[in-house]
């Protein structure tokens, strides 16, 4: 009971689809090149600043300790292009991060979001400082009662 996956488009439909795709690709192409200077940077300095900040915050999943800003692997390049395209399409930083976490999970961000399941990560340093302070206080108190050696 397998249905055929492949749709055999009539020639005319295919031609029309290709024409639309070509126009769309052309528009996307001009949008992409239109917003870039000769060094491949975004012409708008504010956008370039956001681009750099966002790509530094996104983990390259192939080489996990590098950001997609630093990594040379092809996937990082594809993701940088995705971020650039979304910036040029006037998407917010939050929308871009959501796009990435929807596909790759929270791990794609270097700083995990603050939510119930990540409370331990965010709270642990404070808990440890408190524990340390408590221990230091106890030791100090004990020593206060010690007789002074001759």
């Amino acid at each position, binding site marked *: *009971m*397998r*249905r*055929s*996956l*492949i*749709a*055999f*488009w009539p020639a005319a439909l*295919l031609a029309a*689809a290709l024409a639309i795709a070509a126009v769309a690709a052309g528009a996307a192409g001009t949008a992409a090149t239109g917003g870039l200077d000769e060094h491949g940077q975004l012409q708008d300095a504010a956008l370039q600043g956001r681009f750099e900040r966002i790509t530094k915050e996104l983990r390259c*999943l*192939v080489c*996990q300790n590098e950001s997609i800003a630093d990594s040379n692997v*092809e*996937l990082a390049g*594809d*993701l940088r292009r*995705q971020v650039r395209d979304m910036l040029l399409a006037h998407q917010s930083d939050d929308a871009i991060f959501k796009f990435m*976490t*929807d*596909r*790759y*999970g929270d*791990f794609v961000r270097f700083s995990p979001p603050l939510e119930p399941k990540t409370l331990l990560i965010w709270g642990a340093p404070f808990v440890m400082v408190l524990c340390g302070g408590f221990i230091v206080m106890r030791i100090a108190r004990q020593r206060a009662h010690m007789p002074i050696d001759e």
Partner: protein
Amino acid sequence: MWKFLLPFAAFLTLVVLFAFGLNPKRDIHELPSPLIGKPAPEFALVDVLDPARVVSNSTLKGQVYVLNVWGTWCGECRAEHATLLAISQQHTVPLIGLDWMDERDKAKQWLEQLGNPYQAVGFDADGRAAIDWGAYGAPETFLVDQRGRVIFKFITPMTQAVWDKEFLPRIAAAQRSGA
């Protein structure tokens, strides 16, 4: 009492953390896919073998299928190819290929030389379909149920053992619940 219990508790915590962190069997590249339970991202791509054909998963709604992300640059994809061929011979579910970060001619040659396990292979020229699927390293294999939801993801090369243990029971369960 506390003097002994506290250090001991701290020691146990470290043992557990190290046992998890240093476990050589744990694959640090294996990440939970946020796609599980979500609708499968749709794609419409040119077929590797025939540029006049469009490969789209929207025509597969209502049936369980497997999507395999691969590329000719990927050595482990070659390692799993024989298994994919064997699986496709059993005609359990349609096996769809997603050719990623590749050249069409090379992919075509690969399929002609090694055999084609796929019912259709989409050519992901700009990598956008792979991004939608959250692919980060081929080979990756996804299982999609009748309602078009991703129900399982497996990374690293497919083996007959993995297919029998992880995929077949899920396929059977999905087909039962959807029938």
